C-alpha cells in the first residue's frame, strides 16, 4: 500500500498542520508542520513518545484543542472539505457522526451518572432525527456488536471493567457509522490480554464495516502488528511515514531506527534492546535545526543549523532527515 499518495481514496488529508499552546514561558509547538493522509479502511498507527504531539494531532482533527491552545496554520481535508474553515455548528455535526474518538482512560471517559445505553441514545438522537425507541434499538445493537451484550444497557459505567468500558467507547464511536475513528492510546490503561481483545474487536469491525482507524500510541510493537501504515512523530513533527513492513524491517530515520531497537521482542529471548542516548526533548525549548540532532548518531553540521523537510522516497514512504535528501 502506498502511504503518501494523495488521491481520491483519502478520507483524511492533513497538510502543514501547526497547533501551538501559549504558556507563561513561551509557546509550546505541540504539532509543528505535520502532513499526513489516511485512506478509506486504512489502519494508520501514529507512534510517538511523551511530548511528540501525537495526542494534540488527534485532538486537532476534531478541533478539540483546549484553549488557549489553537491551530495556527495548515489544512485538514476531510471528505474533501477543510474542517479548519467550517463553522462550529458544522464541526459539531461531524464529530461523533463522521469522525469519532476513543480516549485513553476508559475509567473517566463516561459520565458516571448516566447509564451506558443512554450515552449511545443521547448521541444517536442528537445526530439523527429518530424516535427514542429506534435509538434504544440502535444502542442495543451497538452494544451487541462490541461484545458487551444489549442486556447491560441499563448498567452504569462503574459496573464495568476497564476493558468493557473501552468497548462502550467503541460502541459510541461506531453507533453512527463514523467514517474515521481516532483512538488515542485506547489500550494503554488496559492489561495486555484485554489490550489484544480490544484491538481484535477493532480489526473485526474493519472486516465487517470497512472502518478507518487512526491508532495513536507509544507502542511501536502494537502498531507494527496491527496497522497497515505507521507514522512516527518526534517533538511535534512527523519524522517517518511508511508501511508496517518498511517501518518494522527497515526504518530510515535514525529516530525510528532507535525506537525500533528500543522495543523489546519477546520472541527473541537472547536479544537485548538498546536505547537512544540523551533525554526527551523539552517542548518549550526544542533544539534548533533537526529536533532529533542532539540524540542522533549521524548528526552533521547541517542538522544543527537547518530544519529538514519531509521528502518522498522511491519506495513510497516519507522521511524527514538530511540523510535521505
Amino acid at each position, binding site marked *: 500500500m502506498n502511504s503518501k499518495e494523495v488521491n481520491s481514496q483519502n478520507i483524511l488529508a492533513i497538510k502543514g498542520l501547526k497547533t501551538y499552546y501559549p504558556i507563561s514561558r513561551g509557546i509550546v509547538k505541540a504539532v509543528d508542520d505535520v502532513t499526513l493522509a489516511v485512506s478509506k479502511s486504512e489502519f494508520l498507527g501514529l507512534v510517538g513518545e511523551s511530548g511528540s504531539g501525537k495526542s494534540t494531532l488527534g485532538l486537532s482533527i476534531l478541533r478539540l484543542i483546549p484553549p488557549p491552545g489553537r491551530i495556527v496554520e495548515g489544512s485538514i481535508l476531510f471528505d474533501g472539505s477543510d474542517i479548519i474553515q467550517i463553522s462550529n455548528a458544522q464541526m459539531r455535526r461531524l464529530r461523533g457522526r463522521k469522525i469519532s474518538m476513543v480516549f485513553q482512560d476508559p475509567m473517566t471517559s463516561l459520565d458516571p451518572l448516566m447509564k451506558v445505553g443512554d450515552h449511545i441514545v443521547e448521541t444517536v438522537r442528537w445526530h439523527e432525527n429518530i424516535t427514542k425507541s429506534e435509538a434504544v434499538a440502535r444502542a442495543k445493537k451497538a452494544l451487541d456488536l462490541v461484545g458487551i451484550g444489549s442486556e447491560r444497557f441499563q448498567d452504569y459505567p462503574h459496573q464495568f471493567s476497564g476493558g468493557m468500558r473501552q468497548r462502550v467507547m467503541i460502541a459510541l464511536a461506531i453507533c453512527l457509522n463514523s467514517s474515521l475513528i481516532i483512538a488515542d492510546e485506547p489500550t494503554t490503561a488496559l492489561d*495486555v490480554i484485554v489490550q489484544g481483545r480490544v484491538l481484535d474487536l477493532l480489526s473485526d469491525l474493519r472486516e465487517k464495516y470497512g472502518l478507518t482507524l487512526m491508532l495513536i500510541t507509544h507502542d511501536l510493537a502494537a502498531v507494527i502488528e496491527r496497522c497497515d501504515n505507521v507514522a512516527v512523530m518526534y517533538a511535534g513533527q512527523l519524522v517517518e511515514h511508511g508501511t508496517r513492513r518498511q517501518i518494522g524491517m527497515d526504518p530510515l530515520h535514525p529516530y525510528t531506527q532507535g*525506537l525500533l531497537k528500543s522495543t523489546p521482542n519477546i*520472541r527473541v*529471548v537472547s536479544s537485548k534492546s538498546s536505547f537512544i542516548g540523551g533525554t526527551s526533548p523539552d517542548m518549550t525549548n526544542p533544539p534548533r535545526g533537526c529536533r532529533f540532532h542532539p540524540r542522533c548518531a549521524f548528526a552533521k553540521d547541517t542538522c544543527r543549523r537547518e530544519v529538514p523537510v519531509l521528502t518522498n522516497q522511491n519506495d513510497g514512504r516519507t522521511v524527514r532527515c538530511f540523510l535521505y535528501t
Partner: protein
Amino acid sequence: MNEFVKVVSLKKYFPVQKGALERLASRTRDYVRAVDGVTFTIEKGRVMTLAGESGSGKTTTGKMILRLVEPTEGHVFLGGTDVASMKGETLRKYRRRMQMIFQDPYASLDPRQKIGDAVSEPLRVHGISNSSERRQLAIQMLQKVGLTPPDDFFNLYPRNMSGGQRQRVAIARAIILHPDLVVADEPVSMIDVSLRASILELMLKLKAEFDLTYLFVTHDLAVAKEISDTVAIMYMGEIVEIASKEELYTKPTHPYTICLLSAVPVPDPDNVSHRIVPKGEISSVVHPPPGCRFNPRCPFAQAVCNEKHPDLQEMREGHSVACFFPQENNGLIDP
C-alpha cells in the same frame, strides 16, 4: 541451593469495605485475597521477576517482602533472618538492607526536597557518617547513576528534572545504603520507550558493582525479558508458573502464561502470532472460583480443574507450574 531470599507461603487478605446496611445484614467479613500463599526463593546476585496483570498481587507481594504492607501470614527470610516477624526499631534499622525503587518517578520524590537531600536522606535516617561525608557520598552516587555533573543536580528540585532523571535519583537513593535486596516496582513503565533500556542497563551495572539482588515487579513481559534471570507468573494472588527466563519464554506450560505471552505484541512484521485468548474476564478476588483459579477462563480446562486446586510442582530443575494439564510443545514459539 543458595537461598538468599526465601519467601514462604506469604498471604495478604484485605477486608472488603461494605456499605452500612450490608454490614448490618451479614456478620461475616469478606476479604480480597490479594496474595494467597506465595513461595519462592532468589539466589544472591540474581534478578527475579514477578509478572502478572493488575490485581495479580505482584506489587503487594513485593511490598510485603519490604514490610511496607503487613503480611497476613507467612515468612520472608533475608539471609536467614525472618523479616516478617520483625518489629519496631529492629525492623526500622533492618530496612537499610532492603530497598525499593518505585513505579512513578514523578510521585516517589518529595517535591519540596532537593535532589541531593533526597539521595543522602537514607544515610541521615540511619545515622551514617557526618553531614559533609554524606554530601560526598551522595555526589558520588549521583555520578554513578549518570547524573553528571553531580554538583549541578545536587541542588535541583524534582520538578526541574525529566522522568528518566528522576528515576535515576530514585535508584541512587535506593542503592546508597548498599542494601542486600532491591525491590523494583515497574521501574521503567512510566519512562519513554527509547530510554527504558538505559535505566535497565544502569540497574544491572549497579547490581554488579554493589553485589545486589533484585526482585523486579512488572506487568510487561517484554521488559521482564530484558533484565530477569528467573520469572514467576502470578494470577489472582498465586504463582502459577516459575522458571528461568529462557525456559519461560520458549517453553511456557501454564495455559495462563501461554495466553499472556501470546498477547504481547511483537515489533516484527513477519511474526505470525497464534493468539490464545482466555475466556471472559478475571474472576472475583473476593469469591475466587473453586479448584484452579484460572479454570473458568482456561481454554484447556477439564472437570478436575473445577474441583481440585493445583499446587506448584516442579516439572524439571528450576521450572515449576501449578496446572493439572501443563501444555508442552504448544507450538507457540518457533524454536
